[in-house]
């Protein structure tokens, strides 16, 4: 663990250097705040407007979390169905890939037209960006079940159900988690986009308010908040993975 921390110092130094140069350049060149605020201004603004900002933040967290949970549930179910019923996989999987080329920013306004400004269209947007990485990863995981293990299980008399629950599902866990990590970061982005296109609160709304008031510093506060949330979600998934997929980390020692 301390090794991990030690390893982290380099990027941290680069990051601090980056902010330092940014600060200096903004100050020396006298760049106006509406064009590019200095990091110090952004931090100040973040602290100063925390009261009004936090409501938006929590709203996004709530939306992102629920969308994420629904999205990954659908993603996992889809993967299981596609894997277990080959006919469905062959006829539907290519279309799922196609569905990922539907531009969300174009679709989102249509969703609002169809489903209004409530939770439904937002959840659909987040689900749409969330479910696919999980489906692909889980399907990959299922498919890549070591053939020798599968052969052993079948020779040992495992039923189809036993094969799935005792072998294929646990075997796919690491792969599923790498899908979940991607989905987790996407869910925040999805939440912001869906809020941006119509909502009462959330980082997306905060950003709109900020940019129409020419408060570039607040736009940056929102950008950093989004990055932080993405990292947070990512971290939480890694934590859960550590707890659930323990046999691997032991092996890696």
């Amino acid at each position: 663990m301390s090794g991990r921390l030690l390893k982290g110092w380099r990027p941290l130094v680069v990051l601090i250097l980056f902010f330092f140069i940014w600060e200096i350049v903004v100050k020396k060149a006298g760049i106006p705040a509406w064009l590019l605020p200095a990091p110090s201004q952004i931090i100040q603004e973040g602290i100063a407007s925390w009261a009004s900002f936090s409501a938006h933040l929590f709203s996004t967290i709530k939306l992102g979390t629920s969308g994420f949970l629904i999205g990954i549930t659908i993603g996992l179910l889809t993967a299981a169905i596609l894997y277990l019923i080959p006919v469905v996989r062959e006829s539907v999987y290519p279309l799922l890939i196609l569905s990922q080329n539907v531009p969300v920013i174009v679709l989102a306004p249509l969703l609002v037209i169809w489903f209004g400004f409530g939770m439904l269209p937002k959840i659909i947007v987040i689900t749409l960006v969330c479910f696919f990485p999980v489906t692909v990863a889980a399907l990959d995981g299922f498919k890549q079940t070591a053939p020798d293990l599968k052969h052993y299980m079948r020779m040992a008399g495992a039923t189809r159900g036993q094969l799935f629950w005792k072998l294929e599902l646990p075997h796919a866990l690491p792969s599923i988690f790498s899908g979940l990590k991607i989905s987790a970061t996407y869910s925040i982005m999805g939440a912001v986009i869906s809020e941006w296109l119509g909502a009462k609160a959330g980082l997306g709304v905060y950003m709109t308010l900020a940019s129409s008031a020419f408060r570039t510093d607040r736009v940056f506060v929102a950008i950093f908040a989004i990055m932080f949330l993405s990292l947070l979600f990512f971290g939480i998934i890694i934590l859960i993975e550590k707890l659930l997929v323990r046999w691997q980390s032991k092996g890696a020692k």
Partner: protein
Amino acid sequence: MAVLTIEDVSKKFAETEIIKHLNLQVNEGEFVSILGPSGSGKSTLFSLIGGILTPDSGAIMLQGEKINSKTGSISYMPQSPSLLPWRTVLQNVLLSQELRGPKDEKKAEEMIEKAGLGAYIHAYPDELSGGMKQRVSFIRALLSPQPLILLDEPFSALDELTRLDMQKWLLSIWEENRRTVLFITHNLEEALFLSDRIIILSSKPAEVVADYKIPFKRPRAEELFLENEFLEWKREIYHKIKEVME
């Protein structure tokens, strides 16, 4: 008494005949090895016995019962240890029982202890060496309740020295339990060292071309390898194999 009887079994893949009118019998408590050229259909034969392939014709009888395409009637140990990485040694050993019914944890622990893996009972497979994994895999097969154990080249992935160790270990465990075993190997010395009978298969399509009864008395010790009698048997079977391959 015959535990396994294979009667006139044939199997084709697409247009290729892999096994042709094969007849074979394994008796209670016997250790039978199958030797045959690569690709002759030995693993295919095991899949047929295991029930995951269906013979095109003929019958596979286990203790008088026809088990064509019936899975779960035999116990199996493959070439790779095939341990589930997310299960501890104990959980892995219990797997084969779990699939078929109630688990006997007590006996499993006992066997693991006896195999010298007591310290690793709650370890994950990744923490074990290749030889240790194969021990676990063999214990798993032994603990499975079925009357016949199939072993498909269990040691061929191990290095020379570990392999010798494992042969001795397997023999010691087996001589205590005397379960009925059908054993595939490429290694003539291994077959001679372990078996009561050695069956030579022809190359594709597989037929039985020879069936040797190996008379070395049990328990057998490592020194057997270096005895002249052993070399003579080796010579004889070796010439037979060469003949088959031409």
